[in-house]
């Protein structure tokens, strides 16, 4: 269901980005990169506006005609972005949430891997597995 999943470092360079092979990868790179605008907007909103919910899940960043882009930021300012095809409108918010949780858990494991050097692109079979799971499974 997810057509593209990306992990973006604190400094906004991609740590991991993968999209369904059927579609034009480049487009997703642009989409994800642009979505950072909204992510930053939402992050900086924290604390300013009252009654903001300070959960890691940022919700729908912005919809486009073809895709919905969802965001999530860890406390270490690492961003997760999931792009979903607009056509499957059946996708519920909490499903997205759980996807992000899964991602986050897996990411944490990567970070705790002694062979991983923080700030390097993610090269982890386990993580790949999780991601492909989300991209294939039909929601």
């Amino acid at each position: 269901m997810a057509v593209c999943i990306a992990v973006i470092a604190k400094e906004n360079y991609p740590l991991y980005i993968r999209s369904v092979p059927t579609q034009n990868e480049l487009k997703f790179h642009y989409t994800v990169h642009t979505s950072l605008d909204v992510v930053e907007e939402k992050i900086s909103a924290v604390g300013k506006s009252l009654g903001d919910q300070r959960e890691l899940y940022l919700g729908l960043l912005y919809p486009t005609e073809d895709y919905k882009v969802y965001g999530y930021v860890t406390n270490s300012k690492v961003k997760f972005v999931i792009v979903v095809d607009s056509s499957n409108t059946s996708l519920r918010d909490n499903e997205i949430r759980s996807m992000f949780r899964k991602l986050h858990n897996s990411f944490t494991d990567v970070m705790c891997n002694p062979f991983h050097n923080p700030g390097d692109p993610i090269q982890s079979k386990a993580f790949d597995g999780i991601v492909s799971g989300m991209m294939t499974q039909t929601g």
Partner: protein
Amino acid sequence: MECQEEKPIIYTMENKPIVTCAGDQGLFMSLYTSLAQQLPREPMEWRRTYGRAPKMIHLEANFVQFKEELLPKEGNKALLTFPFLHIYWTDCCDTEVYKTSVKEDMLRWQNSLRLHGSADWVIIVVETNDTKKKNKTNILPRASIVDKIRSDFCNKQNDRCVVLSDPLKDSTRSQESWNSLLLKLRTLLLMSFTKNLGRFEDDMRTLREKRTQPGWSFCEYFMVQEELAFVFEMLQQFEDALVQYDELDALFTQYVLNFGAGDTANWLGSFCAPVRSWNGLLLRRPIDMEKRDGIQRGEASLLDLRSYLFSRQCTLLIFLLRPWEVTQRALELLHNCVQELRLLEVSVLEGSLDCWVFLSCLEVLHRIEGCCDQAQLAANCSHTVGLWAYATDKLKSLGELCGLVSEKGPTSEDLNRTVDLLAGLGDERPETVHSLQSPYKKLKEALSSVEAFERHYLELSHAAMEMYRAIGRLRSARLVGKSLAEFYMRKGDPERAESFLQEALKSYVSEGWSLPVTHTRKQIAECQKLLSRTEDYLQTSALLAGDLNLTSEERKHFCQEILTFAAKAGEDSHKVTLSMAVFAQLTRLQFHPATASVHSGADLRVVLTLRCLMPLSVRIQQVAASIHFDVDRGGTRGRSKGAQRPTNPGTVEFTHSSSSAGPPSSSSVGPSLELDEIHDRSPSDNTLNSAGVVCKNTHLLLRRHDSNTPPDTPNCVSPPAVAMKEGAQMLKVQDVTLEPGNNNVIFTAPSEQPGTYTLRQLCATVGQVQFVLPHIYPSVQYEVYSQEPQLTVEPLSEPLLAGLPQKVKFTLLTGHYTVKKGVALQLSNTDTMPILPSTSCTAHIRDPAAELVGESVLSIQSSEKVTSISLPPTPPYHTLEFQLEVLCIIPSGSDRPANERLTNGEVRHRPRSYSHPDTPMTAIDQRMSIDCPWSIYSTLLALTFYIPFKTKHSLLSAGNRKYIQVCVQNVSDVNFMLAEVKLTEKQHPSLELLSLNTKTQQPLCSKHSVFCLWEVRWKDDLPSCLQCVFSATFSPLNQDISAFKPFHYQFNLERVTTLYSVRAEILPPAGEQHCRSGFLCGLEVSVTRLSEPAEGELAEETDTDGLKTTKLMYEVADSSSNWAVCGKSSGIVSMPLRANATHKVQIEVMPLFAGHLPFPKIKVLKYLPHTAAVAIQPDPDSCVENDSLSLLDKTLDDQADTASIRSRGSVHSVGSGDQQQKGVAMPRLEAFSPGQVFNNSHARQVLVLPATDDHIVEVNAT
């Protein structure tokens, strides 16, 4: 009562719940206005069903005359037209009238109501005073009428009849009655609402439950629920109204989804109809009736339905002052519609949707602008910008569709397409006909011509970009910019395009997004090519050629671009200079030899490792590295500097942050922090106050640095201005072919002049193209030094022993000097250290790397003055080694040759001996002076030898007989064999030295001594002074006799003749034959003159009786304190000048112990009265004095080689003693030299008995 005639219209903004009025119309009319005004004045609390929160609402009503047909027919669900309350007005107070007419009328009214089952009615009885005056006859109390009415109609619900008393007066009474009436009306209305709405909702729900049944139509249901929405709206309950629409929205969406999921509802058919009109949303009317009708008739298309729904929601949201929700919902709606149409597989004319979306976006924006001021808009453009951007996109795709973007304008079929699209728009709506700038007009115009399109498109794009910038969504802004750039490219305007692309590229690069970087860069390349900005283009293509995101074909293409340009014959001769970094990376640099420091003229190679980023192998005409040369004096000692190189010498690794694909690694940013421990001690007592960890380089770390630096120079957007500095020295290699990946380029570095060479720039030339690395960092340098030839001599064995042949090693560093054939070293010989001719002496020649490169036998010629060693030919900066055997003659002493000139005309240095601090041996420095062909000065070299022996001598006497003892001590670490010990006397041949030594050879081990003894025999008389030479041969232990080397020791003995003999006797006390301790006994000392006074010895004095005497002083000194001397222990005797003259002295002594006690010591000294003080020059002692004097300053003197050795033999302790007394006129004492006084009783002992029962004596004593 204006509207009472015609059927009330279904919807006006001021729609109100309908209330019918029956009965006395005139009466009602008189009260209508005040009623209509006062009813809404007070709010009422509305308690609601289904647990919805109660609300305060202001009730209004639309009063209409009662008509039968107003009452709802069976099954008519309409709510808007539903009369919620029916009022009957009357002011009748006359029973007759009531009975005759009014009652009838009421009954009819009641029946018709009952017929339609509406129970919401009230009868109002108005009572005015003037009515009384009309007819005074049969007046009943008003109450009775009311009661009648009540009894007739309102059985058990009296509240349905209300009295309003003279309403037109304003009296408190009338007020009260008004209020109660109004209250009544409101309550009844609300009751009616609650009842009827409740019923309506129930019906609606049941209807919705039926939605799965066949024949159920969404549109019908839509109408029903919308009715409810209307009513809520009518009651100003916009919240609730909105909810109704949202529910409908959700319901419909769900259907569409289900359709997508497979189960189709037949009513959906109408929505699946192909889209025929796409004239956007219409938000200017409160309600769009034609669409509504369409829906009602079930003919609405999906777009119609959606548009209508949204327009309603929009209206309500604006009532609720939530305009920004409108924009947000609008965007969702538009996206959603597009999706739904796809999902329902509705056939759509290409581009029509774009039109619809475009129009809708603008419509929404207009609507919002309509309802809030600029400030608000500016503050909230984050909500509107989405629509702007969307509209922009759509317009762009439309433009592309209609061929308005291409350079050559639309084609015929483009035009047809345009026509079709415009047709779908239909006519402009009446609302907007008069507003220029209406979306409709905009679109029409935009599609009309290329120029118009461009104008509109740019306007929109810039608007969008501005807003994005304003709210800090720079990335989005850049993305719009990019598509704008694409537009410009299509229009064939690369100039404008590039600036946008560059800006975008910058951000992608700085944030390390490789794919966008690559893509954008490709576009830029295109621009630059079109603009024929050759350098930039080549630079970019170089980047792309090395870009791993591209396919190898693409990379090859770009690489080829460069090569073809390079290959172009230089009709324009100017070369293009690009940054090397995009073409190849300098990864490492190696020096051979690794020290990176060679002597001038030597061969130094530099190996560059270049990682070529090109996909093809590239032939390079020349790789050149420019060198900066400076002569520094330090350069002459090259090696030391070379050694400074940190890690493996001679290799410099150049680290590159990874290529464009690489993210800026967060870890690599900034210096790493350094900690240290601190211990803070109190200044007073040094106790520890606190300990901790501190940061040593805080100042560095706190310096602000932005966390993401551009990863690598290749990414820098425009090529850096690089220039190759010409003129400087160059390392050059011609015709290199760089394969993709690592290549080694080998240079031969110039090394003529000594100095430091720093590699500055690197430049690879491919035809017209130059790739330049402007700075080689970290800086790399190598050194060339030149060295003077050096000759050194070092001993092979430590320490060098004098007296034995010793091997020394000659080492010649040729430096820049070339030793040609026949060149020879001239060693000036010295007889103190001859060079022993050796049969075979071979020289070893080594190159700078200490590799043995040659051997040859040296030919050595020795004349008496010089030894010349002819060297084998040796190249520069080689070392020549050979060994020679030298012998340092142990100076035996006396010989003192005058300073003679050496062959080379400079003063010969006397080998000088001195005692070395760290060895017991005496050291001798031997200087050797060598004439080297490479310099006019002769080289002076010093060798230090050590004398392995210390030698002492002593004179022993027995009466007149004399013995000479020589002690040779081996102070070296070597064991020797000593042989042929001999002692000779120089001046007196008559003198005979009889050896008392038995062995001819004897080992002399390290740190051991050998003593030799000779007896001196003489004929007539013994010379007072002997000059002896002790000689022996020695060699290291167990070597054949040939190896023995001589060793001489020379010494003088003076005044050897015995002058006096002293004899002492100890006499027991009288009557005892033994001495007893503690008892005085006599000591008799007799001094006898043995020989005639020597010729030197003058009579000092004539005695009273005229005899010549010499004055002697005796002294009894008991060192071991065995004896107590009683009375004077010393005295002066004067000896007559005649042989065997004896002088006796009696002294009383007392033994302090019992046992065999040694005799007390007796000293005899020469006594010189003051008169003779100065007059004793010729005295033999004085010549000793002089001697010692001369010795003293000789030892200070440099030239006094052997003095110290000789002096050891002969210096007198007194010698210095009487230096001070010199010149002072006073009697002096002078010691005799060892041989002159012979003590007979030396070492004699006497038996002393213990004192008899001395302990008793002691008792007595106490």
